[in-house]
């Protein structure tokens, strides 16, 4: 197989999986699961930027989009789950 055919197959797999990941993250009912899917989505998007020969954008996406954003959203989802499970014991030591 020539290099361009391989690259087209590679791009096809990347695109289909990215769309599936995005749909799964948006349609997920549980916040923490959605955040994990979002982290995976950020990784995948960074791979796509890398494939588009834009390593700087891939760097920013992996560090900010998936890393920092994912960590912040994990904390927020955890807090939401806790306050939903026990609204009255939220402030208890």
């Amino acid at each position: 197989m020539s290099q361009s055919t391989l690259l087209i197959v590679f791009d096809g797999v990347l695109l289909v999986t990215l769309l599936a990941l995005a749909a799964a993250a948006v349609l997920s009912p549980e916040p923490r699961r959605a955040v994990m899917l979002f982290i995976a989505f950020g990784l995948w998007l960074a791979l796509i930027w890398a494939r588009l020969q834009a390593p700087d954008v891939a760097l920013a996406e992996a560090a900010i989009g998936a890393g920092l954003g994912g960590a912040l959203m994990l904390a927020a989802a955890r807090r939401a789950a806790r306050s939903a499970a026990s609204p009255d014991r939220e402030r208890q030591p």
Partner: protein
Amino acid sequence: MPEFLLVMALVLLLTMSAGLVRVVIGPTPADRMMAAQLLGTSGIAVLLLLGLALEVPALLDVALIFALLAAVSVAAFTRRRAGADQA
């Protein structure tokens, strides 16, 4: 030889897509986190192979960020237990 590297990157990408199934169905959150960790590591391998095959040396730095990302997200994920122990 670049074709061979691309084929290997494609194989790794397909295993990553298979690992995604565990992120979606994984019964516990820990399972999902583990799958995300495997995704990060295979992503590093794919980036290294791509960087050599497409001759974009800067992808090595993106791979470094991926390695950091795995550590940060696992730490953020497990932080709750430590906080509960302190409280």
